[in-house]
């Protein structure tokens, strides 16, 4: 329903997600069947054109990491379809066979949030970076060595030979995240899911890691799905931003359009919470009330209705609003936002 309204201008997107759903059963006991479900990701659709990066923004628990894990097939979707462009074909990675999985693993990689836990402490940096090559049987050992050295230089760990046979615990957090980037790029993927890659780093080295990721994206022609809770980071990294709230995308637009002209009340609230570097700035009172809840068997109305400052009886009694294109390229899921033609 909603997917048909999205991105008709893009002919062949790199990644296309349609009505993605992921329900987690709430276990009540070993032998009892789960009757309640957390709707972690509920009917999410978006697409990413080649060479473009999409930012996925939202507060903790809104399902953005689950979306990323499904896109890398660390988790299985309950329902929905995900298409990835591989040459001229579109691979459906929601249900994929063994052969397709192999091709898929060459196309999609991931950068993790925690640089301290995302590397096996017993393997050297060379082993870590060369792992995708090794398990997929790409190249012979000398070639792999060369490739790893080349990537280490690219991510700024020079001279490469001094880093090749170190162990992760000998590197700093920033250096490890550079290694993680090198590992993600070693098999020339077309799509990289970056799950808050800078959130655990010192503020002072964040910008250099982000610059590195941008430069390499240009060089390798990689698209990112950049998952973050930080709007400033998303603005720096992404061409478009999708705002998620309790498993649903509530607003999706070009970065500057979304930040300059937010339509959805939740996006507005998020933006009003961004710190302003001016000590005399008086923050307007926060419009939304309450805190984020868990999406356990939510009623079919708008998810944001309990916290929405604008909510009307219409919102409380009607089905959740679909993500609609309210103005050119600006998608909003709200009953109250008027369509501009």
């Amino acid at each position: 329903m909603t997917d048909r309204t999205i991105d008709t201008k893009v002919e062949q997107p790199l990644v296309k997600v349609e009505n993605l759903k992921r329900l987690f059963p709430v276990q009540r006991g070993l032998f009892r069947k789960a009757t309640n479900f957390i709707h972690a990701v509920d009917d999410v659709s978006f697409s990413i054109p080649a060479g473009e990066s999409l930012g996925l923004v939202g507060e903790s628990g809104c399902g953005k990491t689950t979306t990323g894990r499904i896109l890398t097939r660390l988790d299985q979707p309950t329902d929905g379809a995900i298409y990835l462009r591989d040459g001229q074909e579109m691979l459906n990675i929601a249900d994929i066979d063994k052969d397709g999985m192999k091709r898929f693993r060459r196309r999609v990689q991931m950068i993790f949030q925690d640089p301290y836990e995302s590397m096996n402490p017993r393997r050297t940096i060379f082993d870590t970076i060369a792992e995708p090559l090794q398990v997929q049987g790409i190249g012979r050992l000398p070639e792999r060595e060369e490739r790893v050295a080349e990537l280490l230089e690219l991510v700024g760990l020079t001279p490469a030979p001094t880093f090749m046979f170190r162990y992760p615990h000998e590197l700093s957090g920033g250096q490890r995240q550079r290694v993680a980037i090198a590992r993600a790029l070693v098999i020339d993927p077309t799509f990289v899911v970056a799950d808050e890659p800078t959130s655990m780093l010192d503020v002072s080295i964040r910008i250099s890691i982000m610059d590195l990721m941008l430069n390499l994206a240009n060089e390798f022609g990689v698209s990112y799905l950049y998952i973050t809770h930080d709007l400033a980071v998303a603005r720096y990294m992404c061409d478009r931003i999708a705002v998620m709230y309790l498993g649903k995308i509530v607003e999706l637009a070009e970065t500057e359009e979304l930040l300059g002209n937010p339509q959805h009340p939740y996006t507005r609230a998020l933006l009003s919470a961004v710190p302003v570097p001016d000590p005399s700035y008086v923050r307007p009172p926060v419009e939304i009330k309450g805190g984020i809840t868990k999406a356990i068997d939510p009623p079919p109305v708008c998810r944001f209705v309990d916290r929405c400052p604008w909510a009307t009886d219409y919102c409380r009694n009607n089905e959740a609003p679909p993500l609609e294109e309210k103005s050119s390229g600006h998608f909003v899921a709200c009953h109250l936002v008027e369509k501009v033609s």
Partner: protein
Amino acid sequence: MTTDLHQSTEEMLAESLWKVRLKLAWRSFRKGWASFVENRIGLLGLGIIALYGLMALAHPILLDTVWDPRVYDPIIGYDAPATIKTIVPDGQVTDPETQVSLLEARLINPILKVGETLEIREQPASPSRKHLLGTDPLGRDVLSQLMFSTRAAFLLGVVASLVTVFIATTVGSVSAFFGGLIDTFFMRLADLILLVPFLPLLIVLSALFQFGLLHLALMIGILGGFGGTAIILKSQALSISVKPFIDAARIAGGGKMHLIFRHIIPNVLPLSFLYMMFSVTDAISIEATLSFLGLLNIDMSWGIMIYQASVQGYLLSGTKYWWLLMPAGLSVTLLAGSFFLVGRAMDEIINPRLRKR
């Protein structure tokens, strides 16, 4: 300290990859060794193990060279120093070296009279220059038995612990990784094994089957491997299998076997090695217990030495016949304890929280 501990990596890179890996392994071994040496109890344990190792190695050489097998063979050797004593009336023994009372003599031969002589063979004989730890009630050299049994103790300990650790590491990693039914099956099996009392079970089993040393070692290994050790190693494997680097390896395209053998097991292995030390301790004490109860079909072991002393009635004679009990008993305690000490010292290296610095 040493300069090539920090040998520059550029130099190392000029060499081939396996050589580099060998050097890295050597480097981490030396780091571990340095902190092991710092810990005195580990060195003490290692020293005791080395001492017993030497004893085990020396025994066949001694039998080949200086020890006459007819006298010193641990199982069929025989030697009892004979002394000729004169029989004197009861209560008139002035020199126990050459005289024996009529009452004692008549216990051996009731037709003897005062004034006659009697050849008395001393077994068990107390320690002498010829038999440094004396002889046992059957006239066999205790030191030779002790040294001979050392080999059996090592063999048993090593086989049992290797089997334990091999099974426990595999079972723990597999059930942590797959979870679900496989996990439930192996963990309930482990509970079952923990629930069944170990010693009575082995008593029943050794009554049903003729238990040799190797059988016992395998038995202890299998029971230990599917039992408590598996649970401990599984918990370690579980804490590793949820780490993001497992997800990273999965995204790299690694299959189940790759994840288990390249990522989970290498991280469980240090703990496995530690439990290997502890299971040597268990195996040695179990063997001693079973052979003390006379339930093992083996020729000689420390437990059997104590068993012999016991069935011949020397167990409760206090320190008078100390050489029948002390050497074997002390050996069981020392060797089992020394493996435990080494395990403790390794624990401090493997488990950074226990480190002093």
